């Protein structure tokens, strides 16, 4: 597979892989807003800035962002079960209760976010520090668990020994830097969201810069932990996506510099470049997932056959029909709501 993902794959595999990457991108954007937003809120809590406009914006919007992140997580969860059934199921079974702990963690995280929204700046100082830190812990556990699960799904050599030892925690060297990479990426993502909602341009740029630096450091660390066989996957099509990622990152960095030093906000530059970054990450993940099967001919063959079988199943036109209807309905409703809001007294 030397062409960039999803090209060069058998059609069914490319189709489901692309759907997974696209829906994952949507999920990732909101998951990152939640993760990065909670981290930012925790820092603001420690700095004791109750009336801070960023803190207020975050408190106001994060419960909604979490609801959307969860909802958007369901679609990649579905397509993942077609793309890599065996890897996902096996990793889920091995991680067992450890992996399932993300569910209570998310429920607790949601109610803590809601509590912060309700309390607003009325909360006592200690609560303003403690609540976001606890929330951050819940979302960190969630994000980390997904990274752990993703790497474990591909590390087939450890499966049997992990099972035999009843070990639910997978401690592959890649997991931590990988998660830190995603955590760093979440800072520019939330900075962009806050930038679009407030006028705090300079602070957003600062946060975005920290995130971009974190991405570079954690990526370097991640490469350092990879065995040569995994590094070899970084060629051909995957290299192309890496270049797209680097280009998106460089453009975003330039955009944030304009924001920081010239106070010029250019959503038309920042939003697409960041989308390129997130989309490249998603595509690269899939390209690397496929590359991890390169040496396992039988497993790969089986997977391709499974994708082909899935592709023969009916129902796709109905999905497309309802997707179009949904888009039209939401567009119509949002126009109507926006019109009424602009006329209402609270506008």
């Amino acid at each position, binding site marked *: 597979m030397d062409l960039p993902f999803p090209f060069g794959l058998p059609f069914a595999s490319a189709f489901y892989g692309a759907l997974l990457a696209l829906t994952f991108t949507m999920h990732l954007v909101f998951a990152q807003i939640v993760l990065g937003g909670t981290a930012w809120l925790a820092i603001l809590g420690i700095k004791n800035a109750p009336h801070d406009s960023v803190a207020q914006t975050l408190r106001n919007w994060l419960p909604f962002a*979490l*609801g959307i992140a969860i909802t958007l997580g369901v679609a990649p969860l*579905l*397509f993942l*079960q077609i793309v890599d059934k065996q890897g996902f199921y096996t990793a*889920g079974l091995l991680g067992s209760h450890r992996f399932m702990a993300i*569910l209570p963690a998310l429920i607790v995280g949601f109610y803590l976010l809601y509590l912060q929204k309700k309390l607003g700046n009325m909360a006592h100082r200690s609560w303003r520090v403690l609540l976001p830190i606890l929330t951050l812990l819940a979302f960190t556990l969630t994000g980390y668990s997904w990274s752990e699960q993703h790497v474990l799904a591909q590390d087939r050599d450890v499966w049997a020994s992990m099972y035999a030892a009843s070990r639910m925690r997978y401690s592959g060297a890649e997991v931590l830097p990988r998660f830190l990479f995603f955590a760093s990426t979440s800072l520019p993502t939330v900075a962009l969201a806050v930038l679009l909602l407030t006028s705090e341009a300079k602070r957003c740029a600062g946060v975005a810069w920290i995130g971009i630096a974190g991405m570079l450091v954690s990526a370097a660390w991640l490469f350092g932990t990879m065995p040569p066989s995994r590094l070899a996957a970084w060629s051909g099509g995957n290299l192309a996506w890496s270049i797209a990622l680097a280009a998106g990152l460089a453009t975003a960095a330039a955009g944030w510099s304009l924001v920081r030093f010239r106070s010029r906000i250019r959503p038309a530059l920042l939003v697409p470049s960041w989308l390129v970054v997130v989309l490249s990450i998603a595509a690269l993940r899939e390209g690397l997932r496929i590359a991890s099967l390169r040496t396992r001919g039988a497993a790969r063959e089986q997977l391709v056959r499974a994708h082909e079988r899935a592709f023969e*199943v009916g129902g796709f036109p109905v999905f497309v029909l309802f997707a179009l209807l949904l888009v039209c309905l939401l567009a119509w*409703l949002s126009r109507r709501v926006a019109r009424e809001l602009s006329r209402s007294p609270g506008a």
Partner: protein
Amino acid sequence: MQDFPYYPVLDFGPAMKGMVIGGIGVFHVFVAQFAIGGGWLLCLLQWRSWKRGDALARRFLDSYFRVLVLISFVVGALTGVGMWLTSIQVSARTIGMMVDEFHWIWATEWLFFLAEVIAGYTFYRYASRLTDSTRFLLLLVYSLAAWGSLFWINGILSWQLTPGGEHGVGSVWRGFFNPSFWPSLVYRSFVSLTLGGLAALAVVQAMQGITREERGHLARTCSLVLVPMTVMPLVGIWYVSVLPEDSRAWITGGSALMTMAFGIAVAASSLLGLYVVFGVLWKRLNVSFATAMLLLGLAFGASGAGELVREGVRKPYTIRDLLYANSLTQDDVERFRVLGSVRDDPWPLREPAPTASLQTGHRVFRLQCSVCHTLNGANGVDHLVETWRPDQMRMNLASLQHTKSFMPPFAGNATELEALVQFLLWRRSGEPGEWTDTTTREDLDKNHRWLVEATTAPRSLADQSTPKQGGGR
């Protein structure tokens, strides 16, 4: 042969796997149905506020909606994901087959879920600044989308019980609109209305700052969505009438647990229906908070028992005619009768027994039995075979589906059967560090003969057919 997907088999200690999924399942269904029924009630209230200027209905609506969003959006969604992850823990192959067959249905359901969340959040944030008609529209989209998710998922879940038609290419819609689709949809829709209405009654009673009359007025409005509950017994009869005969037999005396659960579901829903019609709507009784909670508890019991019945009557399958409860297909059973079932099992044993044959027995137990039995906890196989003599054990295990018809046929050869027997005998002897296998040629021959006599067909089919498949060594 390597096409058989061996997944790691988990051990939940003394708990049966079904208990784990059942617990989350009942809770999730309860919350999800509450959200659906609640949505329709909100539409009714908004309609009254819009068309009849009912200010009280509007006040109530706004506070009830917050409860609905706070509980259902996140807890409902996450317990739904929880159901998915737990199903994987219990039977990855079942959920895998369902995803393969119905992923576009699931993807469509997800679109409805998305619409529900977006309409719901928009209402939550902006309703106070919107006109009555837009508020109504948003609630209508919310309710239709929530009920739509039920519509889609109902097709997949009812397919497990009555798949109808051929499995394979092009069968999605035949499978989706399967024989139990409509009764099951009506049943679930009515349960949803009931849960939404009862929860609303509790909120009405907990509301501050309204008079007794206002409370009574609101309670009667909320009770309107409870009316369909009264025809629940008829829906129950319809549902039972489309069940396959053997499934029906479980709830009519074939299994004590299933019969009891079915009885609880019928009795609790009838009681609820009667109370609503005679007490609330006709006699206009004032429903106190405690009574509302009690009724909600009754509804929880009814819906829990209903779900238990739905899960239970599928036995010995998880997907009728396609996949046995232990994740084996009929083809697997026939193949494994010849080749053995654990020869290629790549998963090591966590506590290996002293001999290779005992280890084989343990693996056979893990693959074929452990989904419904523990070793010595709930439904523990140690206790069940406690009094069986070795030959009795051989015969009963060889003809598993005849021993109890909610078990699948044994899917191994004579040697694996013997290994399982030895493993159970070894456990009965207190798991000694050394074990001398006393199996004779004659024992294996007996195993072989009993396997042949039992055939590979499941009980209901086996009853009608003459033995057709050979067992192997």
